[in-house]
């Protein structure tokens, strides 16, 4: 980042010195507003990086506040070391200023009932603090307040093994969510150990491959056979393009599927693409097209209309009709969607083969 960059005036100090969740919320909004202003003057990777660094800082400050809060309430200090981890877009280092909560906790073994009780209370309080800081709760309940995503290393292992063995549709979905895990606060060695265990459990076999593909190949059609971009037909977003489910999520899911298949442990989609590139698993030009499409997806995702609501930036995931009328945007969108279509044709073909091989 050069010294001229408008991102240099982002002030992390105000985040670190926030003493309450409302201070934190205000500091977050102030810094995010600066970032939003700077959106068009820096590259999308640079912008995405700083937005995610900011979210990480805010969330680790929230974890600190929560620890302090617990101590003040007479619950003491954490009985065993723990790691606060993100799933979803946070885990992939792809949050927007308006992303919701997808998080969990991994704590060390050996704390017994006492540790379980402590972290249960800790999880409930932390998700409230994060909500007060402006992170809406996750609709799918992938949150520290949900016991399923807040466990000791040992019980995490049992859960992962169970998901892997059962391999029903829902289990495989949980595995793909878990695969985006990234540590933002606490003891990162716990997260590293979790990751080793996960990669071990996810070692490739035909059944898992078929299950992963089966979980991935369905996605919202965003391009019709005439090559036209499909926009919403009805409702308040009629005529607009759903960037999240039409472009971004299909790319994330497709690339994640390939990454898991090739045993890649990176979580950010761009890094996953880079690793696939290094493995030379696919033709280079094709991987380049995929990377370009994903960069556009990140860009479009932040070009959706946003506004401030109760001190928090809010946005929907739609490109407005005015934005779509810009020739350059529309051309880039179409190109990206063509790449998505190629990706899914390939995945669907693999899915057919995998299903046929299945006993």
């Amino acid at each position, binding site marked *: 980042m050069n010294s001229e960059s408008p991102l240099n005036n982002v002030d992390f100090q105000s985040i670190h010195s926030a003493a309450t969740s409302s201070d934190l919320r205000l500091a977050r909004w102030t810094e995010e507003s600066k970032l939003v202003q700077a959106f068009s003057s820096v590259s999308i990777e640079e912008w995405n990086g700083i937005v995610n660094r900011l979210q990480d800082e805010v969330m680790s400050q929230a974890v600190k506040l929560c620890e302090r809060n617990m101590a003040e309430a007479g619950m003491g200090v954490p009985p065993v070391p723990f790691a606060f981890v993100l799933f979803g877009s946070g885990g992939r280092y792809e949050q927007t200023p308006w992303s919701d909560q997808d998080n969990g906790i991994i704590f060390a073994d050996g704390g017994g009932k006492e540790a379980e009780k402590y972290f249960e209370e800790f999880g409930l309080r932390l998700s409230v603090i994060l909500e007060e800081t402006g992170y809406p709760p996750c609709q799918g309940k992938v949150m520290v307040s949900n016991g399923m995503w807040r466990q000791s290393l040992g019980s995490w292992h049992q859960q992962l093994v169970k998901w892997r063995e059962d391999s029903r549709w829902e289990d495989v979905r949980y595995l793909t969510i878990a695969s985006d895990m990234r540590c933002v606060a606490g003891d990162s060695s716990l997260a590293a150990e979790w990751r080793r265990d996960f990669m071990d459990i996810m070692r490739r076999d035909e059944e898992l491959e078929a299950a992963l593909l089966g979980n991935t190949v369905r996605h919202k*059609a965003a391009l019709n*056979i005439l090559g*036209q971009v499909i926009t919403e*037909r009805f*409702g308040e977003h*009629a005529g607009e393009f759903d960037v999240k489910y039409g472009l971004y999520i299909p790319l994330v899911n497709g690339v994640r599927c390939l990454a898991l298949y090739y045993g890649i442990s990176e979580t950010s989609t761009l890094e996953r693409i880079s690793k696939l590139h290094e493995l030379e698993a696919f033709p280079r030009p094709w991987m380049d097209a995929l990377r370009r499409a994903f960069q556009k997806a990140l860009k479009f995702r932040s070009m959706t209309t946003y506004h401030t609501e109760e001190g928090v930036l809010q946005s929907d995931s739609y490109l407005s009709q005015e934005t779509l009328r810009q020739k350059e945007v529309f051309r880039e969108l179409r190109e990206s969607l063509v790449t998505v279509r190629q990706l899914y044709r390939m995945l669907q073909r693999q899915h057919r083969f995998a299903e046929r091989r299945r006993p």
Partner: protein
Amino acid sequence: MKKKWLLALLTFGSLFALPVSAFAADEVTAPAVRIGLDSLFVFMAFVLVFFMQAGFALLEAGSVRMKNAGHVAGKTVLTVGIAVIAFWALGFGFGFGNGNGFFGYTGFFFGGNADTGSFDALTASGVPMVIMFLFQFSFAAVSLAIACGGLAERAKLSVYIVFGVLFMIIIYPIIAHWVWGGGWLAKMGMQDYAGSAVVHLTGATAALVATFLLKPRLGKYGKDGKPNSIPGHNQVLSVLGVIILWFGWFGFNPGSGLTALNDGFFGYVAMTTNLAAAAGGVAALLVSWAVFGKADIPSMLNGVLAALVAITGSCAFVEPWAAVVIGVVAGVLTFFTAQWFEKAGLDDPVYAFSVHGIAGMWGALSTGFFATKELADTVAVGGPGLIYGGGFKQLGIQALGMVGVFAFVLVLSFIILGIMKAVMGIRVTEEEETMGLDISEHGTYGYPEQMGLLNNSGKDK
């Protein structure tokens, strides 16, 4: 005991059978058989076309929300009743009675075959006038059913009564007189075999005006004018409705030949009708799949109906390949115009204007392109179309007829519905529309248990 009954029944039956068969045996002449056969044929066509009312009731009821379904299905019976009485009293006379080029003025309060002399336009086939009356009535009732489609889910019940009467007495009979009652379009040689323009475009244009004057249903458009989806409550009913309509169309088109003889020409008409319907349905499904990325069932249903509407006017004048083309064009055209009207802010709940109006216009024009000389000679109306060397003559007549019908019905419907809107009001209140017309107009739901559950779950929140 049982045997006694049977015996009595047989004796009773033979009492009737004997004199009749003796009477018939007297007159087994060729003309008597021909007229008898044709009468039966036309009567059967009447029955089939009448059954299309069941199709409309199911199609419309399936396409609206549960809270209006009982009302929408029930009003079909009401409008049929109105159609019978109004058409018998005045409509038949205005439409087919002897008169000038614009309307007829003899034969009101139709009294049966004794009034045959008042209906010169309908005597050529030799089919008794009572049967011709029933047959013509069933077509008029279809036109009214189409017109009422545009009123769905927001018009007062009284509108159906008042507008139904006026439509059956003034609007439909005048148009029918122009083309089929010896009026000015008939004299020019306009080809409209079973009524793409007369029946469908007429009904649909009235529906368009109703849709326009009623304004969209509550919640159809957001604050910024973007359309919301208001899906019908039961696609299965709609599908069954369309199959019944398709079936009824085998009376509508082939029946319009008024004869079972003529080397089975009615079979040829049935074939072109069937081809067009199939082509329209398949084409509409494929085009919806191509455009939305999902194969849309309501679009396919509209495609079938649009193709049937389009082939209605041209079924006897065109070759099988042309029937397929006419069907495909109708199906695809309707798909796009339905989207377009919806985006333009015209809320047509059952797509009456796209399906019957746009396809009716295309059907009226289509013989101007595709009519062959041989078939036009067989039917003895008009000449060949553009691509069979007829030049622009027939196409011009068709276009004039189409524009004439559309403009006249548009203006007249505007006057009638406009006056009704000013004098009595045509739309229910917001509160009534929200609670549903089943309750507001009739006091009971078509789906009492389900609506009860829905209303209770609403209260719990």
